[in-house]
């Protein structure tokens, strides 16, 4: 359990529509700095859409996103990374043409800036920069125990390892907030245990705020400091895992009781 500090991110009155379909309806909640916040709900509840709104990839028709105490303007995807947000994807978005270490290195892209001339010569500033960031990536690879597949093309890795590489890549960005979209999907019990351990380690060692979408209740109860429950795009409950677990509306939603 991490200390509850200031609010690092807050979404206020978010309304998101795709044509006639209402994905998110008047949802507001906040995320404390350094906590692990879970977003849960039945299928189609709007969880991924919510994550995309937090990410800045989807722009809600109404509502505001406040990050670090400031209202965040609508921005292009490539500007979002600069604000300190990294994420993983539900359907793994690794660069299939590259190896593990190369994928993790891509996370450092924003921090590298030596110009074309030095790049062509691969000398001096360019190579020093490369070495420096390479060191950091190797540390992350060590941390997530994916040393043995450093040079393997990610396309040939099993699903569980691919998810771990994606996590490594997101970590390489040194983010303030890490958004994980179903990090345990498709994993067996052992893999889930490993992944949970890594998520907790990341949160405790680096102090990274984490927001994650997850279906597995046991995982959520163990990992999360606080939980947001969505259903049909609406906010159903917001509180600690224990509070949410005993909330009648939440139980109804999961059991399929009409409401």
């Amino acid at each position: 359990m991490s200390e509850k500090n200031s609010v690092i991110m807050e979404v206020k009155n978010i309304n998101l529509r795709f044509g006639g379909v209402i994905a998110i309806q008047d949802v507001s909640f906040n995320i404390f700095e350094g906590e692990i916040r879970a977003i849960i709900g039945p299928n189609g509840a709007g969880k991924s859409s919510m994550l995309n709104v937090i990410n800045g990839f989807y722009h809600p028709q109404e509502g505001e996103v406040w990050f670090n105490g400031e209202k965040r303007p609508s921005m292009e995807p490539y500007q979002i990374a600069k604000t300190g947000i990294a994420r993983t994807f539900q359907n793994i978005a690794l660069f299939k043409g590259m190896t593990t270490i190369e994928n993790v290195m891509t996370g450092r892209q924003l921090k590298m800036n030596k110009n074309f001339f030095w790049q062509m010569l691969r000398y001096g500033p360019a190579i020093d920069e490369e070495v420096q960031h390479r060191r950091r990536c190797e540390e992350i690879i060590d941390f997530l125990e994916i040393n043995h597949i450093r040079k393997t093309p990610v396309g040939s890795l099993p699903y569980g390892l691919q998810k771990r590489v994606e996590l490594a890549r997101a970590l390489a960005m040194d983010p303030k907030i890490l958004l994980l979209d179903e990090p345990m999907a498709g994993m067996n019990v052992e893999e889930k245990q490993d992944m949970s351990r890594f998520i907790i380690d990341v949160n405790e060692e680096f102090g990274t705020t984490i927001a994650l979408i997850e279906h597995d209740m046991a995982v959520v109860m163990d990992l999360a400091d606080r939980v947001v429950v969505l259903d049909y795009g609406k906010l159903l409950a917001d509180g600690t895992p224990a509070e949410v677990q005993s909330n009648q509306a939440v139980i109804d939603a999961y059991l399929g009781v009409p409401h």
Partner: protein
Amino acid sequence: MFYRETGQFKSKYKEELAAFPLAEDKVGIAILLVIAYVFIPIFGIPGLSFEFTMGAIMIPVFIFTITTLGLNILLGFAGQISLGTGAFMGVGAYSCYKIMTIFPDLNIIICVILSGLVTAIVGMIFGLPSLKIKGFYLIVATLAAQFFLEWAFIRVAWLYNYNDSGGIEGTNKEMFGLIVSGPQSDALTRYFIVLTLLVLLTWLASNVIRGRIGRSWMMIRDMDIAAELIGVRPLTAKLSAFAFSSFYIGISGALMVFFWLGAAEVESFDVSHSFTYLFMVIIGGLGSITGSYMGAALVWVIPVLIKEIGKTAFGFDAFVMENFSIIFLGVAIVVILIVEPHGLARLWQITKQKLRLWPFPY
């Protein structure tokens, strides 16, 4: 396998990041360079006349390898398909011509490099549609560039200095007291110049690809949305790919006219050439520098050899051999696509893999 690749540990990241970290690879490259710089100039290729070897095989292969490197950077590494390669070579050739005629005392290598820069700028302009158009549809934009430029090469008479033939021609140019380009230049001199440029450009390309710019291209190629969310700006990545790639293609165009053919007209830069270069990249292997060498060699040399052997050894006439080599190329493309869609480079990797375990099958 010829040698064991494991057991060579590096204690510094810098060493691991080198172009050829394995000691044996370094030796292999050195041997190839010796063959290119010493063996071939002295002995040529056994069985073929020296003139033929230089003029019909080596020089054009080197030039087209530069073209293939350029197109591979754009298509193989950055994932942007282009059928305008022929026309962009023309941009390189015509701009080199203009620069040479406006500044007749300027060193020709400098003219070639400057024409590469001009092509880089033109390439960026015609690459702008790639910001909105993705994948296969980009063919349309590059074909538009191809056809428009073909028209411009004829219509804009300023490009060929208003001469009647409509084509461009090289005159004798000197460097360090040797005539390096033009009707009186020696094939061997041109061979060394083109070879050296090729080696240099390959080295530069390999550096850029392994660095952050090359990575940004590959990120856009593989998953452009994820790339953006990591912070890669599509505009910068795509336009830089077009620019760098066009630089290479433009240089190869200038070299083609002024270090090989001697003269050229619009037909040398037409759309069928664009397809030929595309084959070189595909057959060689997308996203592979070695593949670029292999693809250019296969697509250029085999038809030339077929025609030559058909003529001298079997006495078939030119018409028959020409058509036979076209059929052969078509069959080669289909066969390679069936056997190994990732091209010769991948075939080579798989071969090496099998040789590691030989004589065991797995």
